[in-house]
């Protein structure tokens, strides 16, 4: 396909293939291949369509599910939150009226929107994918340009299948080497964000490169891309390869037969060309990475698990110092202290970052033969009903339940604490989700972000623990 043209990055190729119009001085009209919709950020967009008398241009390129507000209690427990019921009903009505396929409350395919897109094979290399949700960056793991949009933009895409975009810059994140035992994909991304800060990627699209990235499974790659937004980048991408194709082959929406062959050929042309340049780059040495944990109130406030909480007094910049002081005050933590040994109240294994089958497998393996500490509530929330079914078929649910963990229905759950799953004020949690903002997991709750392994280590010991001591 690409003959001897200027070498291009993966991002540039996909961008170029989706330009509908680019008038000088105006943003680019970019074509969107797949639009994912959920119950929380879409109602006002459908209202907008109705008010303007517009239709959905391509219902077939749109897919809806419900995940954010859905309870994770057993299906026979009725939903009581009136507002959640209203949002569910509204999404059902909207999908029906506009002809959009919906994986609704009783669908066996329901789940967190960023878990089910890939699971159903809807997420395919080379696509542009958007959703009214910032963790749409997850889909970049397949070599797609995928990013979160606001509700006005949801309306734009529904009506026109296009979006107005200013071209972002590119940022190469090279991760070279081999991860040590007990160190995982989550630790790569937490390390990156702790280095560049939560605004470090603003205005950029990340491309993750290097031997440590190539060695990751698709599910691990999704974990990395998922948190690109926590580094400020709206999108993060990984070039497709054999691992990608193997994951996709045979999935319900994946191309079949002759179309599959054609697709593979097109996808092979996507990776960044030799000699292509990026606007910014950083290298991470995978060999020296440790399990990571956050201590503060944004995902950039992270450190190796054996580290000491930084001292605000050592920071020159006044506002940065104040930010850290405020964070430590909220977290009830002392500068200069280790986090190791910090008692924990709740452990949350779930969210679009770490709720896929491989996350549950890794966690179950470590839980097996151990008990959840008496003082700890350990919630396991599969990312989708399909993940839940598969995990149950493997008996993972039994391992969790025998250890004393809660095995729940699929959804966003305590990642965003909209559905009743939440921390009590002052409680400490180790969470495999992606945001530790004040109150994110419940008003007054305090979150330490970490990998599934580190989460299990905390669950079984009752405190922040270096998982490598348990392996």
């Amino acid at each position, binding site marked *: 396909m690409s003959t001897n043209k200027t070498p291009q990055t993966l991002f540039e190729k996909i961008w170029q293939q989706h330009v509908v*119009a680019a008038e000088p001085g105006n943003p680019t009209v970019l074509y969107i291949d797949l639009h994912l919709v959920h119950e929380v950020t879409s*109602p006002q967009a459908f209202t907008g369509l109705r008010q303007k008398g517009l239709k959905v241009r391509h219902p077939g390129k749109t897919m809806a599910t419900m995940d954010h507000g859905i309870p994770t209690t057993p299906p026979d427990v009725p939903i009581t939150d009136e507002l959640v019921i209203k949002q569910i009903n509204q999404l059902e009505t909207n999908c029906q009226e506009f002809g959009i396929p919906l994986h609704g409350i009783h669908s066996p395919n329901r789940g967190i929107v960023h878990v089910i897109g890939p699971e159903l094979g*809807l997420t395919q290399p080379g696509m542009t994918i958007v959703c009214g949700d910032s963790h749409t960056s997850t889909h970049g793991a397949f070599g797609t340009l995928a990013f979160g949009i*606001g509700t*006005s933009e949801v309306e*734009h895409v529904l009506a*026109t299948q296009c979006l107005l975009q200013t071209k972002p810059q590119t940022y190469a994140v090279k991760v070279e080497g081999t991860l040590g035992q007990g160190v995982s994909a989550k630790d790569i991304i937490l390390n990156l964000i702790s280095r560049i800060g939560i605004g470090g990627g603003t205005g950029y699209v990340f491309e993750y490169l290097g031997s440590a990235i190539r060695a990751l499974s698709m599910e691990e790659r999704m974990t990395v891309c998922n948190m690109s937004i926590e580094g400020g980048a709206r999108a993060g991408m990984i070039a497709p390869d054999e691992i990608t194709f193997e994951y996709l082959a045979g999935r319900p929406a994946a191309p079949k037969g002759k179309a599959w062959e054609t697709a593979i050929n097109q996808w092979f042309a996507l990776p960044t060309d030799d000699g292509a340049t990026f606007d910014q780059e950083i290298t991470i040495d995978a060999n020296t990475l440790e399990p990571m944990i956050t201590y503060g109130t944004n995902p950039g406030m992270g450190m190796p698990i054996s580290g000491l909480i930084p001292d605000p007094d050592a920071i020159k910049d006044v506002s940065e110092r104040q*930010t850290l002081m405020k964070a430590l005050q909220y977290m009830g933590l002392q500068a200069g202290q280790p986090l190791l040994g910090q008692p924990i109240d709740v452990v949350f294994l779930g969210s679009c970052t770490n709720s896929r089958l491989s996350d549950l497998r890794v966690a179950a393996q470590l839980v097996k033969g151990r008990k959840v500490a008496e003082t700890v509530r350990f919630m396991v929330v599969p990312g989708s009903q399909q993940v839940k079914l598969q995990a149950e078929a493997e008996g993972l649910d039994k391992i969790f339940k025998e250890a004393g963990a809660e095995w729940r229905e699929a959804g966003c759950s305590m990642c965003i604490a909209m559905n009743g799953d939440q921390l009590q004020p002052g409680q400490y949690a180790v969470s495999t989700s992606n*945001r530790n903002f004040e109150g994110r997991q419940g*008003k007054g709750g305090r979150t330490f972000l970490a990998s599934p392994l580190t989460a299990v280590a905390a669950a079984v010991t009752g405190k922040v623990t270096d998982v490598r001591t348990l392996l």
Partner: protein
Amino acid sequence: MEKFTTLTATLVAIPTENIDTDQIIPARFLKVTDKAGLGDNLFCDWRYQADGTPKPDFVLNTERGKKAKILLAGDNFGCGSSREHAPWAIMGYGFQAVISTSFADIFRNNSLKLGLLPIAVDKETHLQLLSLVEEEPTTQISIDLQNQAVVLPDGRAVNFPIDNFSKTCILKGVDQLGYLQGHAAAIEAYEANHADRVNTLAR
């Protein structure tokens, strides 16, 4: 969208850095199907006591806060989620512009589509504005969108960046959707040219 040309108003400061959208409007208030009422819960967890009564000293609960039309915030404002509820809540409270040293991408995009001006200024101007709010809280400043300038009480004009397209839309008060709809023919042509792309899902 309302037109925005010039604004002369007082400002209030919440100078914390990295204010994320969970602080601007906590997730429990996203269970709405319209945009009404979000302003009452703007900065909810910082603004109200545990029993729901307003904290009297939090600036948004003061008379000064209620009159202000400009919010002065710390660096990297609006990071976190893509929820448009954040700018809806800010506008719902009565703000028409937010001034900071930088903004998160999605928040900035969302705001520009709604006509809430995200104004990025240099650190020095930011500090000057902060001390102005502290020392003379009733002072007004002006924002002139046409000239992309914040005019300080001493008459100094500080320029701010905004892309021409968003600027024109906001000056005229027109929705960006119109521009996209104007490309109907180009979109159709694009679809026809790419009909054989394997990635094209059901049509």
